[in-house]
């Protein structure tokens, strides 16, 4: 499959007052590629995801999604165009059922807000993609549970399922494995392998074993800047990375 660039960030910069949380970061996410972004706490990884997804405005730089300049687009518009994201801190609908969490996410693609007389759960396109997404994330047995009452690891799975339910082309995943057990981690890595062929995936993750297993490309960030980029072997053997990051963390 062709390795075309689905999301491109150019010179992405974000300042919070005097602090430059993300400093001229350029990144390309290709189809059929898991691109991991690693870095110390506070390196700016989550901020980078927020900037790419449009959750917060850029101080500088530009974002291109599926060949279109989306720098001026709002987050919902980018999401509808195929940009899905998950959150580092669970951002679910705790009072809704697991299924309804997924269904509502899927509904974003088939909004029809004016069809006030049609029951939401009769929209089979969105119920189907909700079931499919929940299945992929391993939540089949929990569909009717209240989302706020499931375990932390299961909430992490739901976080991913909601992202998948919108059927995105580009996935920005913020520490999806944090808080997951060994079995769930395996499932998640297998799922990433499965999604890889026709998605572009950005994976922010602290679990280095997982990163080195699943990533095709790795970008290392420290204090808002990119200090190294390359395939897993290159990163593993890079002296700068060892000093700046792996050395401390391990």
């Amino acid at each position, binding site marked *: 499959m062709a390795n075309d660039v689905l999301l491109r960030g150019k010179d992405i910069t974000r300042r919070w007052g005097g602090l430059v949380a993300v400093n001229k970061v350029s990144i390309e996410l290709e189809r059929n590629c898991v691109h991991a972004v690693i870095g110390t706490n506070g390196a700016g990884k989550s901020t980078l995801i927020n900037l790419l997804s449009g959750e917060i405005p850029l101080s500088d730089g530009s974002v291109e999604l599926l060949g279109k300049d989306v720098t001026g687009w*709002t987050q919902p518009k980018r999401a509808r165009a195929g940009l899905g994201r998950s959150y580092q801190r669970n*951002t679910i*609908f705790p009072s809704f059922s697991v299924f309804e969490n997924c269904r*509502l996410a899927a509904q974003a693609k088939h909004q029809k*807000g*004016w069809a*006030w007389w049609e*029951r939401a759960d009769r929209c089979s396109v969105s119920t189907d993609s909700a079931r499919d997404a929940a299945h992929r994330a391993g939540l089949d047995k929990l569909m009717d549970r209240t989302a706020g009452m499931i375990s932390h690891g299961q909430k992490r799975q739901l976080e991913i399922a909601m992202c998948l339910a919108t059927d995105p082309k580009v996935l920005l995943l913020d520490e999806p494995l944090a808080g997951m057990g060994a079995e769930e981690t395996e499932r998640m890595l297998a799922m990433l392998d499965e999604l890889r062929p026709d998605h572009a995936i950005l994976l922010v993750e602290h679990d280095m074993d997982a990163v080195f297993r699943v990533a095709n490309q790795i970008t290392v960030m420290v204090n808002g800047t990119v200090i190294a980029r390359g395939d897993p072997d290159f990163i593993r053997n890079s002296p700068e990375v060892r000093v700046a990051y792996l050395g401390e963390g391990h």
Partner: protein
Amino acid sequence: MDKSKGIFVALVFMALALYPFVGGGGYGIDIVTKIMIYAILALSLELLVGTTGLVCFGQAAFFGIGAYAAVLFSGEQGAASILWLLPASMLAAAVYALAVGALSLRTRGVYFIMVTLAFAQMAYFVVHDTPLGGGTDGIYLYFRPTLGEKLKFDEPLVMYLFSLGTLVFVFGFLTVLLNSRFGRALAGIRVNEQRMRGTGFTTYPYKLAAFVISGGLAGLGGALFAIKDGFVNPELMSWHLSGAALMMIILGGLGHLRGALIGAFAFLLLQEFFKAEAIFGEFAKHWHLGMGIVIIAAVAVLPRGLVGLPEVLRKRLAGSGGGESRIGGLKSAQGGAK
């Protein structure tokens, strides 16, 4: 809504339909008509507060504009048809809601509450201090509207049954609306607007539409109120009424349409009770005090409102079982947080 709740609501509406024929006297019919109209106001507010999570403190403005519009549109020439008078009054309230919503929805939290209050106060002073609304004295409705040849709204029974029909219609409409994709999106916005935007919902138009629908429904209630009383005055737009509407839905239980219904009845019947000189004599003048105490007590005992009453009773009846399940709940909450 599951079955038992649907049956409960159907029974309430059936009882209301029978009431005038099984002993509801003139006074009773008048009070219940008034309560049903306020229940429409409470339902309209529930759409904003309980469903969408927008705490609007200016709902009385929409109610009042509907009421004034009904009187002003009726004119002095003869009876209007209710078939256009009500939609026209709703439209007037909805247009105002569109303007208020468009501006107030740019703010959040406490500021949102303040801005909706400020807009309602503006509307209040417009009718209070300009000739348009007849000033403090208000204006009289010269001719009550008619529906065809036969139905004249001067007759209390006609007014009663029509108000009931409208209430059932509003309740049914909102029930369908809340189960639609639009309604589910509003609920999602209440629970987690950030995630809604993250998944691709542009939330502003949803909230604005909720505002306009809510304003229109409040206006419908207001128009009925004007037709019933044959008279409007600025008090219909005062913040007291906005506050009362909020108390109705809180007392009844936020997040449930039947909560608004129950809350309106509970609130206004309590008010009648504490205002009754036959019971309280001189003290009836201080009815606010009694109301306040009962409402505070109700909120303390029933944090989820009157709709939570059956659950609280069930736990009480189960005795120690209630205590155990509370501990069980804590355990599972800790499990979730680990």
